[in-house]
């Protein structure tokens, strides 16, 4: 049986919602929809209900950044695509995983939705492998990080660019689920990556 994808559409206009649903039905994905008219209805959806992709018109946030942030954090696990029917603040648009504009052709918006539905599946598969352990390089970065070295010093020492250091740091945080250097130091000692007698940066 084909995998069933779930899409949530938050859009005040029935015409737009119906249009999107008709368009996506042309792709050969098996998709079910939930559509609501307002942010509140979306937030009222029970937490155990998961979606693969959410399409939302930014108009439902009513220019309220707080509501927008709350929404993003509530659905942090889901790809959120902006449904842009009139001009919006670029900052808002840039925070969506992608944007669909009212005058996009069928092919364009179907591609965008499809990309995120399929992306998500791949990401999940990757995450499961990745989360088990740090790569050699990430361990090197971690070692230097927890003794208080700056990005620049780490880049110099490992002979890589600062940009690469930053991206390693990001991956470390993502894999370990910890953000502060002090907590990383504890992780590093517990996993014998460094010795407790090293000069640790515990702030």
């Amino acid at each position, binding site marked *: 049986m084909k995998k069933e994808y779930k899409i949530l559409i938050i859009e005040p206009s029935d015409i737009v919602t119906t249009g999107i649903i008709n368009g996506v039905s042309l792709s050969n994905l098996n998709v079910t929809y939930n559509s609501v008219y307002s942010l509140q209805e979306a*937030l009222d959806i029970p*937490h155990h209900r998961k979606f693969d992709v959410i399409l939302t018109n930014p108009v439902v946030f009513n220019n309220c950044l*707080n509501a927008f942030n*709350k929404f993003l954090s509530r659905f942090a696990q889901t790809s959120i695509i902006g449904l842009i029917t009139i001009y919006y603040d670029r900052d808002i648009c840039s925070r969506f995983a992608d944007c669909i504009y009212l005058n996009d052709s069928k092919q364009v918006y179907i591609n965008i939705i499809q990309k995120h539905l399929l992306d998500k599946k791949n990401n999940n598969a990757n995450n499961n492998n990745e989360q088990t352990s740090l790569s050699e390089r990430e361990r090197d970065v971690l070692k230097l990080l927890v003794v208080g070295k700056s990005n620049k010093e780490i880049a110099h020492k490992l002979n890589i660019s600062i940009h690469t250091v930053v991206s390693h740091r990001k991956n470390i945080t993502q894999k*370990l*689920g*910890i*953000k*502060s250097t*002090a*907590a990383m*130091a*504890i*992780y*590093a*000692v*517990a*996993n*014998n990556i460094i010795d*407790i007698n090293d000069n*640790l940066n*515990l*702030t």
Partner: protein
Amino acid sequence: MNIKNEIINKKSILSEIVLKNYFLILVLERFGIELGQQNKTVETVCIENNISINVFLIIANLHNNTFYEIQTNQLNKTEIQTIITYLKNSHQYYSEEIFPEIIENIHLLSRKNKMPGVSMVESFFNQYKKEVDRHFEYEEDIAFPYILSLLDNKQNHKANYSVKKYKEHHDDIEEKLDDLKRLLVQHLPQKNDRIIRRKILFALFGLEQDLRIHAKIENDILIPFIENVEK
């Protein structure tokens, strides 16, 4: 705490709402309301204790439902003062009860579990506590007096106050607490410490829930209030 969607209103029976959500025991304490109020409504108890019903309902509902929408526009001077007193009382609860208890348990943890890294949790938490204390001091010495001076139309504390700093503190505090939970749940091997580790985690989760609402009160009530008056 579970999400309990029921909205508390002034006709709610105080004892019933507490039985449905025991976190409200702390809320009552911080408002100086005692338990044993029999069948009195929220309205009656608030009037008897000289507390704004409005403020009580905002804070109690926040504890019942994290998505509760706060209507702040109609808060008056006394009500803002009540909120500040409430926050001060909760600071006291952390500093005098919760933190000492967690510190003691973390100390015990490092005595029971000698695996590498565990002993470092103690200094991690002490550092965290220092940051929280600093934030509380900032609030009590700078932010709250500034807000109170705004209420009196005086503006002599402004020099040291910054909304940005205030918000950043909240993020840092939340981040470290998250990290500590993650270390204890995921990364540090358990050894001879089942009970003590569970006690620490229960305290941390409770603390987190409480601090989140604490920050929400500050971010969504006090800061908009300041921004509004400063305009």
